[in-house]
């Protein structure tokens, strides 16, 4: 680097403002090569993406104007892409502005300006990890953020069977879908009853499966138990069979008139057939039992792993202090196990909240309830499914999906914040 005379008249603020068009600020800083490269890239960016910006923003505001020609769904997609590109461009502009300002300051103070080559080498060294993360981030944007935004946008339109693209263009309805959900009686009643069962289902089924897993894990981990490996393998088996196979078999076994549980167990023993599929109460019991059966092996495996890492010294020390079995469990085993597994247990709750497979495959949300369109065991996600794919209520389904998302997110944040492992991580 060579010595450079300070340039008193050079204005960092002006340099930064000029870089609103990336490159001009750099040219002003007399970085000729860098400036022209940036200008070229900017021009190319605008040239290549002009159409997307043009259509995208127009589409996002109008959702199309000609019935049968403009496809609102495509326009929304282009609009979201345009927003993505705008955010990307804004970040780039901000960075070049910052760069122009910094270089201009160096000019004023007469510091040596690193050449483009040096700068490139420097940013390669510093930016390498970011470069490696980039494909992952891009994929995330495409596979997660894009559909999410798309769903959110749909919730504010009037997309239903009688107003569907491509024949009709959609229009913005603001919060109308959410208002309908809260005010139209049939929607409100159904929503409240489905939501309350969803919560009961999530809490009871998940808690029971965790409790059972903990109980079994502690027992199997006891020193006096022999053939530990065999027992563990057997207990993990339900996890190994694809769950939809198990669920369909259970659905057949629980059938009131023809299933094995009634015809081979309850009728011969108690002379009484339990209405597993026709009474809401018993259907719910059956569902919870099946979920406990399907879900405990994973938690069991988790707990077994953690239990083996609990040091024997602690129990010995506790023995010295005269602690009882219950005390040892409560103050050593339980905190240790829960501390390590809390995030995964929370995932179990979230998973059951959206456990579409079990509800749909077992009884399609049935049995029906008088005067209500959702079945008595429909949870929010299975209700959304029938709204979207059986009744073509696309925008209402999107609105309920947003509510589901918010509920799960709130629950997860609340639990993560309370769980010890999260605090530790900070």
């Amino acid at each position, binding site marked *: 680097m060579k010595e450079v005379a300070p340039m008193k008249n050079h204005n960092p603020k002006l340099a930064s403002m000029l870089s609103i068009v990336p490159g001009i600020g750099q040219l002003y800083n007399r970085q000729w090569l860098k400036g022209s490269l940036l200008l070229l890239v900017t021009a190319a960016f605008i040239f290549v993406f002009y159409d997307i910006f043009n259509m995208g923003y127009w589409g996002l505001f109008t959702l199309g104007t000609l019935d049968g020609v403009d496809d609102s769904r*495509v326009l929304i997609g282009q609009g979201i892409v345009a927003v993505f590109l705008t955010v990307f461009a804004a970040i780039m502009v901000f960075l070049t502005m910052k760069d122009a300002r910094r270089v201009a300051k160096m000019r004023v103070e007469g510091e040596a300006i690193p050449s483009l080559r040096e700068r490139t080498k420097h940013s390669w060294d510093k930016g390498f990890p970011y470069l490696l993360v980039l494909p992952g981030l891009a994929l995330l944007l495409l596979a997660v953020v894009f559909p999410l935004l798309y769903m959110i946008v749909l919730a504010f339109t009037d997309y239903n069977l009688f107003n569907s693209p491509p024949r009709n263009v959609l229009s913005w309805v603001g919060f109308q879908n959410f208002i309908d959900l809260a005010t139209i009686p049939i929607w409100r009643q159904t929503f409240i009853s489905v939501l309350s069962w969803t919560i009961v289902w999530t809490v009871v089924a998940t808690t029971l499966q965790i409790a059972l897993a903990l109980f079994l894990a502690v027992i199997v981990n006891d020193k006096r138990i022999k053939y530990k490996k065999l027992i563990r393998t057997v207990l993990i088996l339900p996890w190994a069979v694809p769950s939809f196979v198990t669920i369909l078999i259970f659905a057949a076994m629980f059938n009131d008139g023809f299933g094995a549980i009634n015809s081979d167990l309850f009728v011969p023993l108690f002379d009484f057939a339990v209405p597993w599929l026709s009474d809401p109460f018993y259907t719910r019991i059956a569902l919870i039992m099946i979920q406990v059966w399907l879900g405990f092996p994973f938690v069991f495996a988790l707990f077994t792993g953690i239990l083996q890492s609990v040091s024997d010294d602690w129990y010995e020390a506790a023995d010295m202090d005269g602690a009882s079995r219950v005390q040892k469990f409560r103050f050593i085993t339980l905190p240790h196990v829960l501390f390590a597994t809390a995030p995964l247990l929370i995932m179990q709750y979230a998973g059951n909240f959206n456990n579409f497979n079990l509800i749909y495959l077992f009884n399609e949300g049935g049995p029906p309830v008088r005067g209500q369109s959702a079945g008595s065991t429909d949870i929010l996600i299975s209700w959304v499914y029938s709204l979207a794919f059986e009744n073509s209520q696309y925008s209402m389904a999107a609105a309920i999906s947003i509510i589901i998302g918010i509920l799960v997110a709130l629950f997860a944040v609340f639990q993560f914040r309370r769980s010890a492992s999260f605090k530790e991580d900070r």
Partner: protein
Amino acid sequence: MKKWQYPISTMAVLAVLSACGPDREGVMEELETEPATEENKPESLHIWVNDDERELVAYREIGENFERETGIEVRITPFSMGDQLEAMSLDAPAGGGPDLFYQPNDMVGSITLQGLAADIELTPEQEAGYLDGTLDALTYEGELAGVPAAVETYALFYNTEILSEPPTTIEELEAIGEEYTNAGANEFGFLLESKEMYFAYPFYEAYGGYIFAEDGGDYDTLDIGLANDGAVEGGEVLQRFHQEGYLPQNLNADILNGLFLDGSVGAVFSGPWNIAEYGENLGDSLKTAPLPTVNGNPMRSLGGVKAWMVNGYSEHISWATELAVFMTNDESAQIFFENKREIPARAEVNLDDELYEGFQEQLEHAYFMPNVPEVSAVWGPMGDANVFISQGHDVREVLEETVELIEDEIQIMGAGRE
């Protein structure tokens, strides 16, 4: 910026944004169709054939015949019928759809609302020869949306080892239930999936119930006849069958088929899609018959028509229509039946298998499902109503409540909200 500047600049941005957008001179004219002439004859037409080996074989042969006659190549893509609509709705406007696609008549309303199918105009000669009612079943709001290819409905299968003669009246049907049902041993006189409205419909209709009132081919979706006196009477018959134990609850297709194949059921209400499996297992003791009569009138079963529809965004709408008509003429229908063994929608086709006789007879009394989109609000609630009726709830109360629910759902669907 000062406070007053915000709204003004926002307005400015909005004005700029809505001022730009696509150039659309002449876009609407491009969608006009021309009649089929030698000049606009395409080199090839592209069709989506239901993803079924036997259907593909049939349509390959039919496609070759068409090429021999007109010189237009028929390109076939196997595509499951159930997935076609979703793909059509997204691909067709972008120009990625086929020229012809294949859908059942109960989707016609929804297809028309989405603007996916072209309005087909047939000459009187072209219209002749299709089974009665099939063209009406494909007409929605006065526009024909498809050319009928295959029809289906259910009839009675019976096992001659149990029943020497099929029941011809509903009283005989009930007598069979009384004589042969032993629920403890899983033996039944007759079975039907009564919780599915598809199979329960004949009972409601036989005594005067109806789904939507009809006036010259148009449906009045505000007039639902599923809670009138006739429907209630039909519902009570179903309820009696359940209470007497002739019909078990929670019967599904798997259980019904299993029991019938075991030879422990005298007769079942089922469709021609089961002919192959039943025939293999029961052999010569399997026979078919139309549904029994009620007060001297044949019971009307629900039916469906599968049809070739022309993509409304196709560039060769007229030639695609020609192909659709060709693929469903008597000769092609015969090829279709010999491969696929589904009943074609042509009156002249010879079905050389006595197991089809019961279905052909029943087809004369079949009621092709209404094609208005509102009908999708009927199946779910009526299925639920059938469950309540089977559980012994008051029939009139249940049906009245269900009709109210259907009316609410139709309103919520967005019908008439435009």
